[in-house]
């Protein structure tokens, strides 16, 4: 039956879906309604309510007077500017490494996914313990080999922020490498073969074959990673808790800090202030993804 039907329709002009089923629109509305409800109740209303909480100008004055806020903005910019670019550059390099046809590299690729497949809490806490100045394994080893005490890793704000960035990279590097690998595998093999015949060096192959095909994907990944990293609460909170002396907060943890101090208006104001940073990134992603 269905084969007959298909040949019949290929001759006739396509039937628009709404004319095909008089009831289609009805069922469409019914089926899309649950999500619309979720969106209205748990996204739209909370967001509007949030803006209403942060409506008073005095709140923003108080926020800008808080030295922790300025520090958090600076930390967030470092986190995004240094952290993300470093991560994506390493991911790009590794995507070229993991496509090499070697048995051991395929096995390594399986292990390499582990940080992304495991939940953040136990692994980040494990790293936190490694860094403990008195008992942690890193300083124990430093002491054993040099006889000196190692640095007090998480008690130095610069070092602590750098380590939080490294934790973030550790956790999310596999995901982005995986995506760049799929982009890398989509490049036709004969491009590399003919480049090799022409005697191209591996840098030239990267510069003139790999990069032109992956530039757009790389940029999209960078922007998307920035958006997600702005919402990355775990890397900083579970490693440093924002300390020492609230000097390693980023905007994601600062909002929650104000919330826990029962200063909801400051919390929302900090998020509203971050919007000029978020919206251009979101606009870029919407342009890329919605048709």
């Amino acid at each position, binding site marked *: 039956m*269905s084969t007959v*039907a298909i040949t019949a329709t290929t001759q006739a002009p396509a039937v628009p879906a709404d004319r095909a089923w008089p009831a289609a629109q009805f069922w469409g509305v019914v089926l*899309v309604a*649950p999500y619309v409800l979720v*969106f209205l109740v748990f996204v739209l209303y909370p967001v509007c309510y949030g803006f209403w909480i942060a409506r008073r100008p005095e709140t923003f004055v108080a926020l800008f007077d808080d030295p922790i806020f300025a520090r958090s903005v600076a930390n967030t910019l470092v986190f995004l500017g240094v952290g993300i670019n470093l991560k994506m550059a390493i991911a790009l390099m590794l995507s070229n490494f993991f496509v090499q046809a070697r048995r051991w590299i395929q096995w390594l690729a399986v292990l390499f996914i582990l940080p992304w497949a*495991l939940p953040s809490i136990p*692994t980040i806490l494990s790293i936190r313990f490694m860094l403990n100045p008195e008992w942690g394994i890193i300083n124990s080893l430093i002491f054993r080999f040099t006889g000196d005490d190692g640095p007090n890793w998480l008690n130095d704000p610069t070092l602590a922020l750098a380590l939080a960035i490294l934790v973030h990279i550790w956790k999310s590097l596999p995901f982005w490498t995986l995506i760049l690998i799929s982009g890398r595998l989509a490049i036709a093999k004969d491009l590399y073969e003919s480049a090799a015949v022409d005697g191209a060096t591996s840098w030239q192959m990267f510069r003139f074959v790999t990069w032109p095909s992956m530039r757009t994907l790389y940029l999209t990944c960078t922007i998307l990673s920035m958006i997600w990293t702005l919402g990355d609460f775990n890397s900083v909170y579970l490693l440093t808790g924002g300390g020492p002396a609230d000097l390693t907060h980023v905007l994601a943890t600062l909002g929650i800090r104000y919330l826990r101090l029962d200063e909801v208006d400051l919390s929302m104001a900090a998020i509203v202030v971050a919007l000029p940073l978020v919206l251009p990134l979101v606009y870029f992603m919407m342009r890329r993804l919605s048709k």
Partner: protein
Amino acid sequence: MNPRAIATEAKLLLIGIPVLLWTIVPVYHMVLFAISPKDSAFAGNLWPDHPTLNNFLVVFQQKHHYLTYFWRQMGNSLVIAVATGVITLLIATCAAFAISRLKVGGGRLVMNLALLTYFIPAAFLAVPMYRTMGLYGLLNSQWALILAMVTLASPYAIWVLKQASDKLPEELDEAAYIDGASALQLFRLVYLPLMMPSLVAVGTYALLLAWNEYLYAFLLLSKDTEVTLAVGLGNFLAADDSPWELLMATGLIYALPPAAIYYAFKRYMVGGLTEGAVKS
């Protein structure tokens, strides 16, 4: 092997060995702690002198005040993760079908709103979400966390399912129509079976998202008997003299199910998710 090939292999190893160490050390450290007896856990050895499974026994028997509700919290994590997976799957499958196949009016707008939600950094939405859950009287109820996780998981779920659904040929719908099928029969008999791989990917995605979630769980739930295992683990941080070996043993138990699921469904996850995550 000629010298040039050896040089290439050496270069690959020079990348491979640091990558291996970087990946494995924090995980190995967690395992090491979990199988070390309490007194030797801090010795800084690369392998404990007397490896033991005793820490796991302590955890399973709930014999520490941090672990009084271990099984309860494990159960909470499971219920919340499964509920999030099922509800997200229901909502997203229906929405994607309505938008992609039935071409419901305003479908494009709904898709864009969902995408926009996907791009709100999770920690930013947490604050207003926490307040509105309070207004709705859901705070400290597990429904608050389930609904919050459904809210976070569905946009991406709908998007992945819509992309997959758009790839099914139009002729299927036309054939079904000429055969006299109703819209719901098309949904049940044509759309659902063909979408199965994407449905598995999306369901797993939502389930893992909820199991792994920490921030929303610790904001929305507070009673020790109601929180998830993630929050229970975070509570170990409350004191400096926490039993690290027990924390790492609990953490390992908590981390194994998602890792096992991830590796079991990797085929679906990589196909369904990385394709959807960033369209090139």
